C-alpha cells in the first residue's frame, strides 16, 4: 500500500464540516418535530371511530415503513412542485424526514397510549375532566414516560437518515462532505472524518437523552 494520506483538504474544510454538523442537527430536529406532530395526529386518527380514517393511517404507516427513505424523498421532491408547492431542497428534506419519522412515531406513540389502562381514563372522566384534559394529563404524560426511550432512539436514527437528504442536495453534513470531496478527490479522508463526526453526534445525543431519562423520566417520579 503506497497511498499517502492527505488530510489537508479536510482540515481546511473543517469549519464547513462543523457548519454541516449543525445543518444535520437542525434538519433532524425540524424533522423530528414534524414527525411528532404527525405521530400524535396519526394516533388520534388511528383510534378514531371512522373506519376510513383508521384505514388511511394504517396504510400510511405500512407504506412508509416498507419503502426506502431514498425513494420517499425523491417522490416528495418531485411531487411537491406538481402540487404547486415550490420549496428549496432543505425544507423539502425536512418534510420527507417528518413524513418518514412520523410513520414510526405513530407506532411508538400508539404503543405508549395502549400502555395506559382503560380504568385510568374512566377515573379521569369520573373526576370531571373533559376529553381533552384526559388525553393530555392521564394519557399523554404517563405515555410519554413509557415511550421516551424509543422516541429518542428514533431521533438518533432520524439524525443518521439525514445523510440521505444529500441525494436532493439539502444542506447537511454529507452534502458538505461531497463538495469537499469533489474539489479535492480525497474521498477516504473526507468520508472517514465525516463518519467520525456522525459517530460523535450520535454518541452525544445518546448521552444527553440518557441524562434526561435519568433526571425526568425515571421512577420514583421526581
Amino acid at each position, binding site marked *: 500500500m503506497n497511498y499517502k494520506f492527505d488530510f489537508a483538504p479536510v482540515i481546511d474544510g473543517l469549519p464547513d464540516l462543523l457548519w454541516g454538523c449543525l445543518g444535520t442537527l437542525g434538519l433532524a430536529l425540524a424533522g423530528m418535530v414534524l414527525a411528532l406532530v404527525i405521530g400524535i395526529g396519526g394516533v388520534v386518527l388511528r383510534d378514531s371511530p371512522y373506519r376510513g380514517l383508521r384505514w388511511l393511517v394504517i396504510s400510511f404507516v*405500512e407504506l412508509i415503513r416498507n419503502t426506502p427513505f431514498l425513494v420517499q424523498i425523491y*417522490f416528495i421532491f418531485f411531487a411537491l412542485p406538481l402540487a404547486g408547492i415550490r420549496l428549496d431542497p432543505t425544507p423539502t428534506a425536512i418534510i420527507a424526514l417528518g413524513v418518514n419519522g412520523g410513520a414510526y412515531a405513530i407506532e411508538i406513540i400508539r404503543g405508549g397510549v395502549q400502555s395506559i389502562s382503560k380504568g385510568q381514563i374512566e377515573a379521569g372522566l369520573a373526576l370531571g375532566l373533559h376529553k381533552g384534559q384526559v388525553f393530555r394529563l392521564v394519557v399523554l404524560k404517563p405515555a410519554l414516560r413509557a415511550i421516551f426511550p424509543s422516541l429518542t432512539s428514533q431521533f438518533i436514527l432520524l439524525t443518521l437518515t439525514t445523510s440521505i437528504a444529500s441525494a436532493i442536495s439539502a444542506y447537511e453534513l454529507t452534502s458538505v462532505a461531497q463538495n469537499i470531496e469533489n474539489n479535492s478527490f480525497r474521498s*477516504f479522508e473526507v468520508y472517514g472524518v465525516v463518519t467520525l463526526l456522525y459517530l460523535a453526534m450520535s454518541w452525544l445525543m445518546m448521552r444527553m437523552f440518557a441524562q434526561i431519562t435519568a433526571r425526568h423520566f425515571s421512577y420514583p417520579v421526581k
Partner: protein
Amino acid sequence: MNGSEFLFLLVGLKWTIFLSAIGFVCGSISGLGIALARTSGIRPLERGTAGYIALFQGTPLLMQLFVVYYGLALVGLKLDAWLSVAIGFTLHASAFLGEIWRGSIEAVPKGQTEAAKALSLGYVSRMRDVILPQAIKISLPATIGFLVQLIKGTSLAAIVGFTELARAGTIVSNQIFKPLLVFGAVGALYFLICWPLSLYGARLERRLAAASH
C-alpha cells in the same frame, strides 16, 4: 412507461434482491461470530465487538458504504462496484445482526447454561444444542425486521453508483420525465418485497409474546 422501461426496473429489482441476499447471508455468518464473541466472557473480545457494533449503529449506512468503497480501493483492491457495496452491506449487517443475536443469547434463561454445564457439555455443544436453538427462536422477529431494513438500505447503493432498483428508477425517470409514475412504481416494488416480510415478522412476534405469557 412502456414494457422495456418496466423491464429495466425489474432488472434493478433483481440486483436489489441479490445484494440483500449476499448482505444478509454473509452478514449472518459473521454476525453469529460477533454475537458469540460479544457473549464469550472474554473481556478484550467483548470490548472489541461492542466497539464494532457501536461504530456501525452510530454512523449512517451511506457513510459506511462510502468508507468501505473508497477504503478498499485505497488498499489497492480493484473490485467491481457490486462487490465493494456487497462487502459494505455485509459489514453493516454483521454488526446489527450481532447485536440482535447477542440480546437473544442473553435472553435465554441462565438455568439453561447451568444445566448444560452440569451435564458436562462443552462450549460447542452447549451453544449448538442448547442455547442457540432457543436464541434463534427469540431473535426471529427482530432478525426479519432487520432484513426489511437491509432491503430498504440497499437503495443507498444507488448513491454510490451501483444500478439496483432505486438507481434504475432514477435512470428511467430521467429518460421519460415522469418521476412520480416511476418512483411510485419503484416504491411499489420495494413494498411488494418488504411488506410480506414485515407481516410475517409481526405474526411471529405476536406468537412469541403469546408463548411467553
